[in-house]
């Protein structure tokens, strides 16, 4: 019964979304403004209906109702409860339902956001969200109904893939979804602004608030995903420039640019057209990501199985939403052009330049991601664009971004002069020089990475010092986020430029030397697990506890997984994996990744900074005026 109720709630939500989308034009046409008053209620009801639908699907997984096709295909009674729940979104239909639920939820929450927004703007924002929800819900109902029944019901499910049973894999996709769906709010605000022909009061504040939420979730989701790949895939890498990773990175880059650009117009206006465009592009990248993951046009380790019909539908949806938005922008974008002039050499100027650089970097990521399609269409053969391309293009573009991030907050809001700024530049450059000097011990790239990180730290410290009398939550948030990026950069640089690895086939008792330490294979023995048998290697490390990587063999379904052993300290990671034991020894692969844990710490700092800045956007006490 709950399954039918779920399907009913899903269809109800689609109807409510349609109502939400059409009420405003209807009110206008029938000259009955009262009709539009139903819009916020419809948005809230739609969110509740979708929560009910999602709850019904999760319930079906929890009770292992194998009469539901997706449960049969993706779950199993022997699965631990955590993974039964996570299996609810671990496949195409369920993940799409989650996506749609989050979209409705954001729509419902925006209905409660008043914050000085005129009614005309609020209703338009909700109407746009109604259109988005209806499109996605139609896609769910028509091509990917998660509540499909199987008759007769099977006794047991088929989904017991042990490789996919990992807490990181269970929870990073939903976080990423919250982030990429969250960008839709800014999109709705952008379209509403184009529709009205002006931004009006309260617009920038709302866009900043919702985009920051999305940005925080994207930051956390991307770092958790990377941490999962690092710990679980056993390659010692954490970012592969895989199309699916890129499709999470692109909304993150645009959301970062948007959060910064909107700050400029919040105070005095100026870049309205650019901000609106960024908001449109941000959600466009989210949709593109969804399309790339689900249509199977690109090769990726994360892709869902291809289904051309779904691909066509989703492409149509993408074309309609993004094409419509950009057409509207082309026709009316110039009306939003700022009336306030700003000085190029100023804090706002630096901010603008950074948003441009971030957007261009995003464009490069997009180009690299779809280049294989372009090459094949042009008959250049099957090509894959990998890490070398992205490293050679994106990193040089991000270097000035970090430098500007260090200097920008030190500049004045109005027109600044080089003379006034010179001492600050001197201090930041000195910090950078120290970092770069240290980095030179390893490589030029390490010098660049550590130099930029040190310069950024110097800039953040100096900005905090300058603002010591005007301390605000927002400033602290910014300092945290910028510091987080610097710390993450230290981790990235150390983990790649100072890293070393060794691989050897060792007999028990043998050892391999790496980075001045000896890694000895003490023993390899069978250890039974709850539903697998593990081959556990014990590897002694000079001056540190033993590492115990495993190979796990599962019986049903037959599958082998590698469990890396990672020991993290502030100074870095030691990481070991073992291969199949054989009579002439066991393959042991060890990595030393200095400073890599700083990457995770830096990401956490960034997210915390975002949260602090977010808190400054919520009026905890009602202000006068």
């Amino acid at each position, binding site marked *: 019964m709950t399954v039918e109720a779920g399907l009913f709630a899903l269809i109800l939500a689609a109807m409510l979304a349609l109502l939400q989308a059409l009420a405003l034009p209807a009110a206008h046409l029938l000259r009955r403004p009262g009709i539009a008053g139903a819009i916020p209620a419809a948005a809230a009801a739609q969110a509740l209906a979708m929560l009910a639908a999602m709850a019904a699907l999760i319930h079906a997984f929890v009770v292992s109702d194998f009469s539901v096709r997706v449960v049969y295909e993706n779950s199993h009674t022997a699965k631990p409860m955590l993974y039964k729940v996570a299996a609810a979104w671990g496949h195409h239909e369920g993940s799409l339902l989650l996506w749609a639920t989050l979209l409705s939820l954001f729509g419902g929450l925006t209905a409660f956001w008043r914050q000085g927004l005129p009614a005309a703007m609020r209703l338009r924002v909700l109407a746009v969200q109604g259109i988005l929800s209806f499109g996605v819900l139609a896609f769910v109902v028509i091509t990917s109904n998660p509540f499909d029944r199987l008759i007769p019901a099977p006794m047991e499910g088929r989904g017991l893939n042990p490789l996919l049973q990992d807490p990181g894999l269970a929870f990073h996709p939903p976080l990423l979804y919250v982030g990429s769906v969250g960008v839709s709010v800014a999109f709705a605000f952008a379209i509403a602004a184009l529709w009205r022909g002006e931004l009006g009061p309260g617009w920038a504040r709302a866009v900043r608030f919702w985009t920051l939420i999305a940005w925080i979730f994207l930051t956390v989701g991307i770092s958790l995903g990377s941490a999962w790949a690092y710990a679980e895939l056993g390659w010692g890498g954490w970012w592969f420039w895989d199309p699916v990773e890129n499709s999470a990175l692109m909304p993150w880059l645009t959301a970062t640019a948007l959060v910064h650009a909107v700050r400029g117009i919040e105070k005095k206006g100026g870049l309205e057209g650019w901000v609106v465009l960024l908001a449109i592009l941000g959600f*466009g990248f989210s949709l593109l990501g969804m399309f790339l993951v689900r249509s199977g*046009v690109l090769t990726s380790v994360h892709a869902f199985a*291809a289904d051309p019909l779904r691909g066509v539908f989703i492409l149509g949806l993408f*074309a309609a939403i993004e094409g419509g938005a950009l057409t509207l*922008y082309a026709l009316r974008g110039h009306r939003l052009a700022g009336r306030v002039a700003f000085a190029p050499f100023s804090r706002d100027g630096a901010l603008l330049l950074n948003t441009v650089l971030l957007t261009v970097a995003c464009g490069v990521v997009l180009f690299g991601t779809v280049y294989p*399609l372009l090459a094949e269409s042009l008959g250049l053969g099957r090509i894959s664009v990998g890490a070398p391309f992205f490293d050679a293009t994106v990193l040089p573009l991000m270097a000035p971004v970090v430098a500007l991030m260090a200097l920008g907050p030190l500049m004045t809001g109005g027109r600044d002069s080089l003379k006034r700024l010179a001492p600050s530049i001197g201090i930041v450059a000195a910090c950078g020089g120290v970092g770069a000097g240290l980095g030179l011990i390893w490589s030029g790239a390490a010098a660049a990475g550590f130099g930029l990180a040190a310069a950024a730290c110097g800039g953040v410290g100096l900005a905090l010092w300058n603002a010591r009398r005007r301390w605000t939550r927002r400033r602290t948030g910014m300092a945290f986020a910028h510091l987080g990026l610097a710390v993450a950069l230290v981790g990235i640089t150390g983990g790649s430029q100072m890293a070393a690895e060794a691989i050897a086939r060792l007999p028990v008792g043998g050892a391999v030397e790496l980075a001045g330490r000896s890694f000895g294979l003490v023993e390899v023995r069978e250890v039974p697990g709850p539903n697998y048998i593990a081959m556990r290697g014990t590897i002694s490390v000079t001056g540190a506890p033993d590492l115990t990587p495993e190979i796990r063999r599962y019986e049903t*379904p037959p599958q082998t997984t590698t469990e890396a052993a990672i020991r993290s300290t502030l100074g870095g990671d030691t990481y070991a994996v073992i291969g199949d034991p054989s009579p002439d020894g066991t393959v042991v692969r060890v990595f030393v990744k200095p400073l890599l844990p700083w990457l995770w710490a830096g990401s956490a700092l960034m997210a915390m900074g975002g949260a602090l800045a977010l808190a400054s956007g919520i009026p905890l006490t009602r202000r006068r005026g």
Partner: protein
Amino acid sequence: MIGRWTTWAPLLAFAILLGLVATRIGKTEPPLPSPLVGKPLPEFALQRLDGQGTLTPEAFKGRAVVLNVFGSWCVACIEEHPVLLEASKSAEIVGIAWRDDPVRTEEWLDRRGNPYSVVGLDPDSRAAIDLGVTGAPESFVIAPDGRVALKITGIITPEIWRNQVAPLLERLK
């Protein structure tokens, strides 16, 4: 002026991207080719359901047969079952009961009819791994010389039997 046409640039870029992606859609390949096709059937030795020794590929050497992987837990197999029952009047079908309890298999066949000339038990996927079985049902058409002539993933529908399996068996005889 400058502003007037720059607002069109994003739309233009988007149209190019869309055109590019649209040309690629649906060109991806359906999954599941089998590397086994054309190769000899992997060796296996399975307990027979009737308890009379083991089932090996030797048992049907020299005859064209259909090897069907099924299980009493498998819903799709129920759907496939009538097709196999009908087909078993004119062809030999060998069953592999995969990841199943012999008692349940027995019961299942009693209730629905038995299309198989012989059934081998593969509770721990020994043969299934070698055969590259990803799910049930899956079927292999085996030529008299022991080579795999065709692999069918999923249900053998009456159409598939009529258009692919039956003509192939006829040719192999």
